[in-house]
């Protein structure tokens, strides 16, 4: 099968996946409503001089955007465990489609969902909280890399879980601690030992740090965070695709 055909199959599989996700309440709740809720709840913080703490908002909103990419991507990869339990992989594999297309399709779908969810929060952040995004190209790059690495993590969870409830449980077990340790709501510098070390092992930390660095114009930090996220992407997607391949071509 030629590479173009393999890629086109992946695109159609991703398109088909996303088409279903847009109709699903679970997706809307986890990918958008939950991050929006967190954004509004934490924005009610008053500064020392009274009124809304603007400094905190400039800290919070990029963090929420990174977190949204995480929720969107991991949530999308939950479709893998549903497909597994409903026999959808079998259905696709009966067609002249290679398993690489399926893995690629699922990865594209996860990353697209992460980016799209983050974009909604970017827009909401700039309209309602007047956040001025410094360099939209770099913001997009960090969000994209973060989405890919979260997709890789989600693929591993979904591939290992034996049924949907188990996958949801595992993903929440990972998402919630990551949300609080990944520097979304407070800087990892203020965390007690040994939490900063744990935070440094999480991709969300690099996503939030990278997005804030773009806003602050600290290019070397952006570069470093992007590199770490890229390494995460390669690592998790390699492991995730190995697990998926094993499920499909046993």
């Amino acid at each position, binding site marked *: *099968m030629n590479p173009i055909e393999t890629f086109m199959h992946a695109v159609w599989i991703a398109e088909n996946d996303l088409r*279903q996700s847009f109709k*699903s309440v679970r997706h809307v709740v986890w990918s958008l409503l939950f991050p929006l809720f967190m954004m509004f709840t934490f924005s009610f913080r008053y500064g020392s001089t009274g009124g809304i703490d603007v400094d905190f908002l400039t800290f919070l909103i990029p963090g929420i955007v990174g977190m949204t990419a995480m929720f969107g991507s991991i949530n999308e990869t939950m479709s893998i465990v549903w497909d597994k339990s409903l*026999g959808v992989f079998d259905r696709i*594999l*009966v*067609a*002249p489609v290679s398993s690489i297309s399926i893995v690629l399709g699922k990865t594209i779908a996860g990353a697209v969902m992460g980016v799209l969810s983050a974009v909604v929060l970017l827009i909401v952040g700039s309209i309602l909280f007047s956040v001025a995004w410094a360099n939209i190209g770099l913001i997009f790059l960090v969000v994209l890399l973060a989405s890919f690495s979260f997709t890789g993590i989600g693929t591993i969870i979904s591939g290992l879980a034996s049924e949907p409830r188990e996958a949801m449980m595992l993903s929440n077990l990972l998402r919630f601690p990551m949300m609080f340790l990944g520097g979304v709501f407070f800087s990892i510098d203020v965390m007690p030992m040994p939490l900063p070390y744990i935070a440094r092992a999480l991709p969300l930390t690099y996503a939030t740090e990278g997005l804030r660095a773009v806003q602050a114009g600290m290019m070397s930090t952006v570069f470093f965070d992007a590199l770490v996220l890229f390494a995460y992407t390669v690592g998790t997607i390699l492991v995730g695709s190995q697990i998926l391949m094993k499920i499909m*071509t*046993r």
Partner: protein
Amino acid sequence: MDSAIRVEELTKNFGSLLAVDHVKFEVKSKEIFGLLGPNGAGKTTTIRMICGMLTPTSGTVVVAGFDVSQKPQEVKRRIGLVPDISNLFGELSARVNLEFFGKLYGLNRATRKERIDYVLGLFQLRERQHNLVKFYSKGMHRRLTIAAALLHQPEILIMDEPTSGLDAQTARLVREIIRDLNKEGRTVLLTTHQIDEADRLVDRVGIIDHGKLITLDTPEQLKNNVQGVRALEIRLLNDADLQRWVPLISKVEGVDQVVLAEGRLRILSKALPEMIPAVVELIAKQGGQIENISVLQPSLEDAFISLTGKSIREESLSKEDSLHNRLSRSGLR
């Protein structure tokens, strides 16, 4: 006649479970071939290996002249699979489902539209084509699953339990569709655990049990093989423990085999009707009450019993459960 599917010494192990054991058969071009066996006999596993969805432990499968292990994509282009469980996307409409699979089979936009319109019409689904598949009835699901398998006009149609779980009317419709597709020149390989279906529908049937192909012949020939043997079916009144009668009746002179089939005792014998009084007397003496007794002509079921020593209807559920449990425990399903 050419062979559409050739299976040679096909074997599949799931850990220590031998699901398919050196199975060998050939499906001729343009015939309807049936694999008959109880649930858990290895039919679905065999089908999955033929379609290239499962790698055999050993053995070869050649479909339309292509070795499945060497040229899986060539094989996939030429077959249409109707799986035992309808696995289409419930959150999407029938049309969107068919669009997606049409794309995967490489049909261009115009061909896709033409083929989708055709199969939706053929299976009387055109009016509901924009409804979500999850709201479909079981029969509509089945028809759509067959429609999806026919989209790319495969020369070989492989159907796993095509009428399983359907009401009588829909099952009849599906059987008519299968016959029509065969008349159009398509080869059909189907699996079934229903004797009637094999008897009425297929040109040749292979009986499979415990992963082994026991025999392969036309239904007529299989019935001829048990010629001279007739079956006596007895239904007892209020008897919870039918199993206890099996060894008792087996001892009656002239009785060849006794099995349980759907709450009835089925007795095979060459000495019918002469041995009836002895059986009736034994049942009365042991405190049993006969509700109904009938003598039947040999059926494919009796061929199955004389070959395997049991009824196909007797233990289907427990065997299916055991295979499913084994597979899910080993993380394979």
